[in-house]
């Protein structure tokens, strides 16, 4: 599925809309950024509760297709700005990481 299709899911709220619309092939769920760096695949959707600028840096380095911030965490302005600069979509959701992963997993074209 594409990043733009994620935006249509009622559970997700697109909070950073300046992004490159890409085919999402993969996902990775983790709150440890070093773990993300070590293990996330290519064009992955990053599911995490780490709502800060460094998450964008990691996502950008790994060419992540987007970031989902779980548990309804507030996303700071500098994180949104940084993501806009890097053309990475950010979604906010009230779901936890487990539920969000389940929501996305079944919809990926594998």
């Amino acid at each position: 599925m594409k990043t733009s299709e994620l935006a249509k899911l009622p559970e997700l709220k697109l909070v950073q809309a300046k992004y490159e619309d890409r085919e999402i092939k993969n996902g990775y769920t983790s709150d440890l950024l070093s773990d993300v760096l070590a293990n996330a695949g290519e064009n992955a959707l990053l599911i995490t509760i780490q709502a800060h600028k460094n998450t964008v840096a990691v996502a950008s380095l790994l060419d992540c297709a987007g970031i989902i911030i779980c548990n309804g965490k507030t996303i700071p302005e500098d994180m949104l700005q940084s993501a806009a600069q890097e053309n990475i979509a950010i979604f906010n959701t009230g779901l936890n990481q487990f539920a969000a992963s389940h929501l996305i997993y079944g919809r990926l074209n594998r």
Partner: protein
Amino acid sequence: MPENTVPLSQSEKIPSLLEELIYTLKIRDVMTRELCTISRAETMRRAQALMKEHGLTALPVLENGRLFGIITVGDIIHALDNKIIEDKVEDQMTRNVIVLEDDMPLSLGITYFDRYHFRVFPVLDKNNKLVGIVTSRDIINKLLVEMNKEVAELEKLLPAPAQVNSYSVYKEFIHQKFSFEDAGVASGEFKKILQSKGFDAKLIRRVAVAAYELEMNLVIHSDGGKISMAVNGSSIEIAAKDRGPGIKDVALALQEGYSTANDWIRSLGFGAGMGLSNVRRVSDDFQIQSAPGKGTEVRAIINTGKENADENKRTGQTT
């Protein structure tokens, strides 16, 4: 003194080094001290033989250390031409000799060459004793030697060629302690540079992972330091060097899961004890040096030749 007829100053402007040399050097500094002379009673034939043997264009005529005259090539030709080659030297020598004093500045000596059109000048000291002989060749030789010395001195002042010159790309960033705002700037920039150079995406990912972890370490653990990327023909080197505090037990720090990060840093998703092992995993060659109180230096080398990396390293993924 007709300044504008000095051969060396005929050009618009003498280079200042040369100018300084001809004003500071004295005639005694350039003259030849090994003298070949002849006495008045010898024959012109003997003079000719000496000049031929030693390759001279002039031969001073000397008696008890006093200069009486000089035999030039012209005098020899004249003697041969007029069949008086067996005559005594004192009868055929040039008597009006123009001499230089050993204490004269070289600049003045040079004007004599121009003014009198002689090729050779005997040199006398204050007591009118012959102490040397000067040809234009002596002057040129000495000037070249002196200029070489000056150039050698100047070269010493040149900064040593920087190591960066041997790399096709070199880029570095400085990170301050706890400057989380800047973390990711270096690795992001490195990534862009490598993308613009057309490097393979998987290779770029490995470099990016190594660079990001190392710059996070600088920000989280160090008192500030420098991260750099150097690209050469066959590899990319990411190096991080900090000012301290240094790692007490490097082997322990390399162990996955070991971290000294505080709770706040952990809450940000760092300090999981994976940083250095991540760097080591994506590197083809990994070196770390650290001493408490001094600082830490880490070098991660990633070969750019595709055959050099196994698939796991190239994807940057663990299995």
